[in-house]
């Protein structure tokens, strides 16, 4: 994270005269709410219809019967849309002390702290990142928030939106489809390579931290992009349900890397559907970190639709007190000579629960497909638990699936070795855990890796004392 000063403006007074009721829907989800969202956003007819169809589906679909218990969700309790400029209802005094302390320890600048804590939602990054955005635009890359993209690029939008994660996919995808707001829209034209990662930071302005974000990324033939979503610092939100959808299209010979570390506060239930479709010789890489939220369900998927398509998912899940991390990856091989690799690192401690849940599917046409799955789990104490639930299916005779899994705790020998050189028990434990997660952290951009390490260290020092 940068330590530059962000000019903060007092937006909340700017909207003083507005009729607030116009910009905030009533609690609960009804057809009226959805029409209202669409009307406030001044959306085209087809999007309203799409939302309404999704709503119908949402009402009839059951919650999935696997994974962490979610029956306590009461969909009538939530407010589904608040216009961002009015979201500033949270007061700094109300932000939990633990979150404030973490901000301080990480050295996050004031303006950013308030933004991350949901105290301000206006954070004009456009000014700061102007040059960066200019370069991106010069190359013909479209990088907008999803709402704006719908207005500015309606044809491109309509061609791809909802094509990979239809609202029929699961109840939370249906929910997202009817009330979505915010998220990122990226289009990288044919052959364009972006040297530096695109960060959602660059265009933080209004609706980034939505509860129901919708992200759509299209990487055209031969193009190459690395997108970094969010940041590793803890994000506090009073909204307790988050259901996002991410759709990514990786065309022929293209490459996309999507890096994210979710660190929601532990009152959040985070349910995200992430899916990429990869065409001939394309490559999709999910770098997916899960250290926050109370209940997290996230299984980034790659559909390897054409020959030589490649899918990679490197992920970590760290579950502490009162946390359930149910994470993994899905690799669906539909064409010959496709390749996938899953590396999953899980850590549970202080009574946390961390599960790996994954699917590798080799279809009848996926001749000579190869998959490699590596799941390693570290359980730090007796109160914590972990399960590994892999599903590997091959429908042809020439493909190969390799699966390797380990579960361990920290060995006394290792601790003794490190301590015999002067490290305290806490430092030694921390070092072993960081080393365990290294295959993930090395994939992150430098500043994120540094911050993640810092953050996990803070966490460890809390638990070890």
């Amino acid at each position: 994270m940068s330590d530059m000063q962000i000019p903060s403006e007092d937006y909340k007074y700017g909207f003083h005269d507005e009729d607030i009721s116009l910009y905030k829907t009533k609690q609960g989800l009804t057809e009226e709410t959805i029409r209202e969202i669409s009307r406030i956003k001044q959306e085209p007819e087809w999007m309203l219809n799409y939302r309404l169809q999704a709503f119908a589906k949402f009402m009839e679909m059951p919650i999935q019967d696997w994974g962490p218990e979610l029956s306590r969700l009461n969909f009538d309790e939530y407010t589904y849309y608040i216009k961002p400029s009015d979201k500033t209802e949270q007061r700094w005094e109300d932000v939990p002390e633990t979150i404030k302390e973490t901000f301080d320890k990480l050295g996050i600048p004031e303006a950013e702290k308030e933004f991350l804590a949901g105290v301000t939602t206006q954070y004009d990054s456009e000014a700061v990142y102007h040059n960066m955005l200019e370069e991106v635009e010069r190359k013909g890359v479209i990088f907008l928030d999803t709402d704006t993209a719908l207005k500015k690029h309606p044809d491109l939008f309509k061609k791809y939106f909802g094509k990979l994660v239809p609202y029929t996919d699961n109840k939370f995808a249906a929910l997202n489809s009817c009330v979505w707001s915010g998220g990122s829209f990226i289009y990288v034209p044919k052959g364009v390579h972006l040297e530096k990662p695109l960060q959602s930071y660059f265009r933080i302005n209004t609706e980034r931290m939505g509860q129901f974000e919708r992200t759509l990324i299209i990487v055209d033939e031969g193009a190459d992009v690395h997108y970094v979503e969010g940041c590793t610092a803890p994000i506090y939100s009073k909204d307790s349900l988050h259901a996002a959808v991410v759709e990514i299209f990786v065309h022929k010979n293209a490459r996309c890397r999507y890096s994210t570390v979710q660190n929601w506060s532990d009152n959040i239930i985070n349910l995200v559907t992430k899916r990429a479709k990869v065409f001939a010789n394309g490559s999709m890489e999910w770098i997916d970190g899960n250290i926050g939220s109370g209940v997290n369900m996230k299984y980034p998927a790659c559909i390897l639709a054409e020959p030589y398509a490649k899918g990679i998912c490197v992920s970590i899940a760290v579950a502490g007190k009162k946390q359930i991390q149910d994470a993994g990856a899905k690799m669906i091989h539909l064409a010959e000579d496709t390749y996938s690799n899953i590396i999953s690192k899980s850590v549970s401690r202080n009574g946390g629960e961390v599960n790996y849940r994954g699917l590798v599917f080799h279809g009848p046409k996926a001749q000579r497909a190869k998959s490699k799955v590596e799941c390693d789990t570290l359980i730090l104490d007796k109160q914590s638990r972990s399960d590994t639930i892999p599903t590997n299916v091959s429908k042809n005779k020439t493909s190969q699936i390799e699966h390797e899994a380990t579960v361990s705790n920290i060995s006394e020998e290792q601790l003794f070795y490190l301590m015999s050189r002067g490290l305290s028990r806490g430092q030694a434990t921390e070092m072993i855990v960081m080393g365990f997660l290294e295959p993930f952290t090395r994939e992150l951009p430098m500043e994120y890796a540094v911050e993640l390490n810092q953050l996990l260290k803070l966490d460890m020092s809390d638990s070890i004392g």
Partner: protein
Amino acid sequence: MSCLKIDDLHVDVDGKQILKGVNLEIHEHETHALMGPNGNGKSTLLAAIMGNPKYHVTRGSITLDGQDVLAMEVDERSKAGLFLGMQYPSEVSGVTNSDFLRAAMNARRERPIPLFTFIREMEKTVKEMEMKPDLAHRFLNEGFSGGEKKRNEIVQMKMLKPSIAMLDEIDSGLDVDALKLVAKMIHEMQIEQGMGLVVVSHYARFLDLLKPTHAHVLVDGAIVVSGGSELIEKIDQEGYDWIEKEYHVQVVKEEKKKVALLQQCAAGTKGV
């Protein structure tokens, strides 16, 4: 003047008594060779001094310059000036040698060592130990050959500068040239900072190089005879049999674990 004093030390491992009253005093500049057949408590003594949690001290005391070592955590013992070069150093994946060593050095300093000072010192030491310069960036002992691990122990010792170092079969896995190098490093440290040394080794050549000032023979959990270099020479020529006779002790024979081969298992059940 550093002084490590071990008095009437009794140690259990998994409920079995291994050390039965060891007395030993090591001063700075001294080099003590700890000898004796395998399985008679040499490694146990060193591990117990360092505080390996597998070893339980049931009686006796250990002090370093008058401070109670047994009351200290393992890391405190290290910071107090003790060092154990291990027979089987652990591997830690994902942690680079340099990150580890820097943390270890910082643990004993009030202010962290400046990064460039550290890098210079590490590069110099790695070069002196004739190791490849990429050592700093490799993960701690991971994928190291036996010899590399042992050299890495010496790199750590050199950088942490203990007042009393204990080396447990540091010679295994090292060739003659490497042994000479290790001996040279030890001499330098003894001259420069007066490091005291306890060394367990079966290799006469290594002891020749180290020129111990003291030698002790550990049999069945106690030191039965101490002396100087003449004792090392005698053992090198005659083995330990004479000690059993002369001192009326019984050498503990190492239990050889029976190796079950798959074939034998099958033979047992199927009568092939």
